[in-house]
């Protein structure tokens, strides 16, 4: 066989298979820039008629050298970077990263910060699930459902912009605390948005749950068993949709989750419909948790009083030399993190988001590694696609909710 290209160079991607065992098998290439794959991802599929026989998934088109870049910046400077991993729920990345550094430093955050981080994590989870469901419904043609959901998501984004100053990438976490406290009236507006959420999500349930077209496209499509899901490293809603109630918020509680009352919704057989429904129910649980947290939120300081990581008050920086030096050292050298290694995992909207940090004892990390759920899910997604129709690739892929930023890093 002649090489496919005459430049003498290998293709950027070498597919796992060239030709099927049968002559009538067709190989099609989907992506990496395709309007129906949200995210740049390449799916090489071997087809028998309309049926997908084999799939080879390639990611890395959004690789930015995140982990390499991290080794060249102070621990504080990494916060905007981790925002850009899963940019749909950036706050969860912030908090997981900050907690990993705090564990290495032995810093314990204040109660107000702990409750606020929990609240904002759940708020981000709603935004993330709304995006995922809205996009995958739109790909099936449900434009109304899409508009309802992104409308709520936009309320959330605008509301978070009030708090953090940015719509999507917030840079709101700080080592040992948060960037700023809640603005006036923020919690009241939060209550309003949650009420609106319930109204519109009720309409989504009415539009979708018993919709013949929707059920035909999603029921028994992309089925995954619990054993398979664990073997391929699936976590989060993907694993729960198979019926396994595995949730880090319950199993290894962090932040304030041990004090909250919530259920872990699970699916029946791990198909696309279950993944849709598990996400819908998880958002309801998040709303329930946020309402509890709004009542529980204690007063008190937001940041720990620890000069190793918390910046001194600006007025003090301009008036006394100790604070000026403190500020200078924190900016130029970074917070000094004792040598050691830590793995901290949070239940991100997509699954287990883990930060493995190695410190050699300075102001910059020696190594940062992200266990991103999307990347691990991409390693097993071929199991969801093989054996189904070509047209099922798009809804199944949508239900996996691959986020390019955290998948390719």
């Amino acid at each position, binding site marked *: 066989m*002649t090489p*496919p*290209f*005459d*430049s003498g*160079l*290998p*293709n*950027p*991607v*070498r597919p*796992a298979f060239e030709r099927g065992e049968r002559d009538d098998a067709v190989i099609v290439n989907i992506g990496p820039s395709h309007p129906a794959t949200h995210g740049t991802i390449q799916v090489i599929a071997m087809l028998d008629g309309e049926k997908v026989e084999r799939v080879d998934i*390639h*990611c*890395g088109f959004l*690789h930015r*050298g995140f*982990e*390499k*870049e991290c*080794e*060249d910046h102070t621990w504080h400077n990494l916060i905007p970077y981790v925002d850009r991993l899963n940019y749909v729920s950036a706050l969860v990345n912030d908090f997981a990263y900050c907690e990993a550094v705090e*564990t*290495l430093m032995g810093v314990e955050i204040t109660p107000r910060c702990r409750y606020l981080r929990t609240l904002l994590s759940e708020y981000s989870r709603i935004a993330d699930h709304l995006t995922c469901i809205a996009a995958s419904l739109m790909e099936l043609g449900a434009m109304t459902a899409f508009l309802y959901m992104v409308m709520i998501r936009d309320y959330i984004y605008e509301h978070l912009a009030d708090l953090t100053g940015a719509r999507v990438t917030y840079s709101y976490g700080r080592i040992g605390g948060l960037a700023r406290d809640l603005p006036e009236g923020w919690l009241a507006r939060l209550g309003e948005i949650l009420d609106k959420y319930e109204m519109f999500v009720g309409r989504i349930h009415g539009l979708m749950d018993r919709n013949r077209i929707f059920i035909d496209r999603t029921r028994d499509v992309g089925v995954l068993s619990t054993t*398979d899901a*664990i*073997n*391929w*490293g699936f*976590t989060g809603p993907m694993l729960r949709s198979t019926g*396994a109630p*595995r949730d880090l918020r319950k*199993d*290894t509680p962090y932040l304030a989750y041990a004090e909250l009352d919530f259920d872990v919704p699970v699916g029946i057989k791990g198909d696309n419909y279950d993944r849709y429904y598990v996400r819908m129910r998880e958002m309801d649980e998040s709303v329930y948790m946020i309402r509890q947290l709004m009542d529980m939120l204690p007063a008190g300081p937001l940041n720990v009083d620890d000069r190793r990581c918390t910046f001194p008050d600006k007025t003090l920086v301009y008036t006394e030399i100790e604070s000026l030096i403190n500020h200078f050292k924190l900016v130029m050298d970074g917070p000094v993190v004792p040598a*050691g*290694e*830590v*793995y901290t*995992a949070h239940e991100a909207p997509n699954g*287990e988001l*883990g930060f*493995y940090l*190695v410190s050699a004892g300075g102001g910059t990390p*020696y*190594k940062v*590694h992200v*266990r991103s759920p999307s*990347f*691990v899910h*991409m*390693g*097993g997604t071929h199991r969801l696609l093989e054996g189904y129709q070509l047209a099922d690739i798009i809804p199944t892929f949508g239900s996996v909710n691959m986020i390019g930023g955290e998948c*390719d*890093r």
Partner: protein
Amino acid sequence: MVAAIAGRIEQEAVAAGGRVATSHGMTVVTLLPENLLGVIRRLKAELGFDLLLDVTAVDWPERTPRFDVVYHLYSTTQHVRVRVKTAVSEGEPVVESLVSLYGSAGFAERECHDMYGIVFRGNADLRPILLYEGFTGHPLRKDYPKLAEQPLVPYRTERT
């Protein structure tokens, strides 16, 4: 519960000639590369570590052997994590692959191979995953300069 698991991990590791420590609440097992597959197989079968979270490496250029290959495992029944480390040299950065035990090892080992050049014996599919075909070097090694540029790929012409 967690202490009981940690005790049993220690038994398994010491029986294989490894060392056990605790770091920030997580049990860390350090093994020789040749014992890795056997111990992890036993961790999976006997102690229920059924989820391979992650495979990565750490580069210590001044140290011999140079690389640490780091695995994180989780037990979905006991809710315990364990970190398994093994050191491999620069001249022979080879460890046994875990693809026979965990499906998730496939992509994770491909990434580790991309980034550090660790060879996972038994993983037949070590094609680049985050990088591309023809990328030279291993970017997360400490001796790969951050600003290093890869050779420009000439324009690929029409299919012949």
